[in-house]
């Protein structure tokens, strides 16, 4: 699914990624770890096509519409309700039964009762749950998750862990985390960035 050879990325004079080789097979589960500033987020953004490499070669064998990207920011409009946000993305991704899918995800992540409340009134944890709904909405083939457990409470963490277990082996995962222990059982490969 992802193949990188000599992948490099600089921001001005600052080298963030330097000659990275990476292979991630279909339905694999790669856990990426590293200190702050080691390039985890940059790697995810490169794989999502949001950044271009400044060196090397990167191939991601899926369309951008088949990528689910969970970023640091939840990528939802604060002035729209949870339902409106997911409906917007559902329309843009042309999900055939978006209302059913939206309702199912909101229910699964415990947001059904607040579906008509604006995202701006949500706590950080609720926003992360909504971001997870957005990421999973179009049933992507490749999931790029940046600190997915960030801000989640115990219940949210269990929900996400269960979801990842369910999808493992059916989807390809590239997960950046500071807490690799939580994903130890799911990982098929590990990558440490210095």
């Amino acid at each position, binding site marked *: 699914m992802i193949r990188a050879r000599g992948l490099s990325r600089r921001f001005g004079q600052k080298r963030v990624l330097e000659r990275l080789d990476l292979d991630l097979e279909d339905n694999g589960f790669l856990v990426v770890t590293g200190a702050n500033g080691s390039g985890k987020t940059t790697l995810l953004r490169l794989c999502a096509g949001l950044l271009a490499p400044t060196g090397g070669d990167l191939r991601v064998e899926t369309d951008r519409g088949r990528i689910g990207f969970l*970023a640091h920011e939840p990528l939802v409009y604060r002035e729209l309700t949870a339902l409106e946000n997911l409906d917007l993305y559902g329309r843009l991704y042309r999900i055939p039964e978006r209302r059913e899918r939206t309702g199912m995800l909101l229910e699964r992540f415990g947001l059904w009762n607040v579906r008509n409340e*604006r995202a701006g009134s949500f706590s950080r944890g609720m926003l992360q749950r909504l971001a997870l709904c957005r990421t999973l909405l179009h049933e992507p083939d490749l999931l790029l998750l940046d600190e997915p457990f960030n801000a989640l409470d115990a219940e949210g963490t269990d929900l996400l862990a269960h979801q990842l277990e369910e999808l493992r082996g059916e989807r390809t995962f590239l997960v950046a985390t500071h807490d690799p222990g939580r994903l130890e059982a799911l990982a098929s490969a590990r990558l440490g960035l210095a």
Partner: protein
Amino acid sequence: MSYLRDVGTLARKDLLLELRARDTVPAMLLFVVATLVVFHFALPSENSDLAAYGLLWVALVFTALLGLVRSFSAERDQGLLDGLVLAPCDRSAIWLSKALAMLGFLVLAEIVALPAFAIFFRGIGWETVAGVALADIGICAVGTLLAAMAAASRARELLLPLLFLPLAIPIVVGGVGAGVVDDPGRYLGLLAVYDAIFAIICWASFEYVVTE
């Protein structure tokens, strides 16, 4: 058809955001009326048509600029452009929807501005209205592209006017000309050609503005 559906979805979202936040249109309305009031007292009572129409266009261009500075604020502040860029729709749909929403805001400001101009200065004819309508298309097409470029910069409030105002000169020339000459066809034609050329350029180049 799916392209137009995407544009409709995104434009509807922008209108809904404005309806809820109300941070662009009220500011544009207040600004354009306040500017015309200031100009009313600043100009001598025997001012010429040229001066009055010139000031109308100054007010309209700066009102548009005020709206354009805010046009990508939600996407910029919350990193939302990444979410839109990743969606499988044609990226130019983002530009077109923003330009249409901006056009709506600008038309609302002008619905107030043109009668206010008629009260403070002199009546306006069909040729001025036609000039304003054609200019709006160019302002929104070019301004939205430049606003997306400026949104990526830290000095966006400074950068957008620097990029936009030079490109707005033909719009002001065409708009003022259409309002004051006996045969406005030439100037309206200039505005129409400007709209067509820049709309195509902006439509085709937006993808490169929002991606690396």
